[in-house]
């Protein structure tokens, strides 16, 4: 796991567990707000893909894991792609260009302990998503049994299923990294 995250060119230390936990809370709060705002403005019609893009960007810049660039090392252990072209002017202006040090395997390759941590985080995330999926399962079943019981939900069923699928995919993309960031102790303490 990396000890710092780069935001618009500024290096922010994430060695302390409390900071990482705060980051996880902020990210999930931002997702909740984004979903709520998009529902109010558009009813998620045509804007659901924005939520997926937001999750991918959160992984790319903060969480890592499935995408190179965040706090958690890439789960697949592959080195980030080396582009022959120089970074774009926009990336340089926004200061999001992150040079990858050549030949440093430890920046992206997981050792034995990290592989075990990765697998255990996925085990916990799998259990959590499995339980979470039971909620829409229950709602779908109740709608099949007696649709009038679900009439209090202030959204049409197609939008509800679509929104629940979006939430499920957000969890799929971010939960293992969030578990790793939440449970990893302070890095200074681990070194001492």
């Amino acid at each position, binding site marked *: 796991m990396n000890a710092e995250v780069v935001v618009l060119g500024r290096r922010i230390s994430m060695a302390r567990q409390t900071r990482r936990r705060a980051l996880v809370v902020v990210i999930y709060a931002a997702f909740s707000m984004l979903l709520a705002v998009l529902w109010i403005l558009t009813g998620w019609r045509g804007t*659901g893909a924005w939520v*997926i893009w937001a999750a991918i960007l959160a992984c790319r810049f903060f969480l890592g894991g499935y995408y190179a660039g965040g706090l958690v090392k890439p*789960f697949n252990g592959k080195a980030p792609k080396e582009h022959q072209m120089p970074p774009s002017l926009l990336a340089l202006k926004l200061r999001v260009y992150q040079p990858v040090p050549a030949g440093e395997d430890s920046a992206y390759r997981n050792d034995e302990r990290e592989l*075990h941590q*990765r*697998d*255990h985080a*996925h*085990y916990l*995330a*799998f*259990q959590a*998503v*499995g339980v979470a*999926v*039971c909620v*829409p*399962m229950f709602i*779908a*079943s*109740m*709608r*099949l*049994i*007696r*649709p009038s019981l679900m009439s209090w939900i202030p959204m*049409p*069923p*197609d939008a*509800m*299923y*679509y929104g*629940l*699928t*979006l939430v*499920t*995919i957000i969890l*799929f*993309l971010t939960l*293992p990294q969030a578990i790793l960031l939440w449970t990893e102790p302070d890095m200074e303490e681990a070194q001492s």
Partner: protein
Amino acid sequence: MISESSPFPWFSTARRRTRRIVVAAYWIVALGLIGVCQWAQFFRPGHNPVVGLIYPLQILVFLPAILGGVRAGGMVKPFSGVHFASIYDRDTTQTLFGPARPLVGSMQASDAILDERERLQRDSVHFISYTTARWIAFVLLVLQCVAGLISPAFTSRFGAAAFLLLALVLWSLPQTLILWNEPDMEEQQ
């Protein structure tokens, strides 16, 4: 990782071939139930208690009891161990008076705790399953979007089946991988 107490008293699940047949039958039955549920939704939408209650219960309660993992009594040892001693110390002899003692769910004490190798195997299988389930969720989202282009009613009817399918994958894919890949238990000995 394979439980020594088979849920099927009339045949052994020690051989991998037998386990693969059971797993294949499980998926055929489970996907068939989802297909029936979806068929009923399309042709008789709403007020369908049999499809709405019994089929999800069967998929989520009865069928995992065959594979195990999420609970004791199946072919795979329970992933999180067993924390109630009465479950594995149960005497399977039925008494004339008093409440009936369920046979399904009885297990041996060796199944109650996973050793280090089994825990690593469990976590590794869950990593593969999680990655697979993530792609399945993406495909279901795309299918929902396509269904939404046709009609909102189409999406609402497809949504129930999509979550049934996702729940089935989440509740049974790790056990399926373990049962499919674990070698014959005789060979191990």
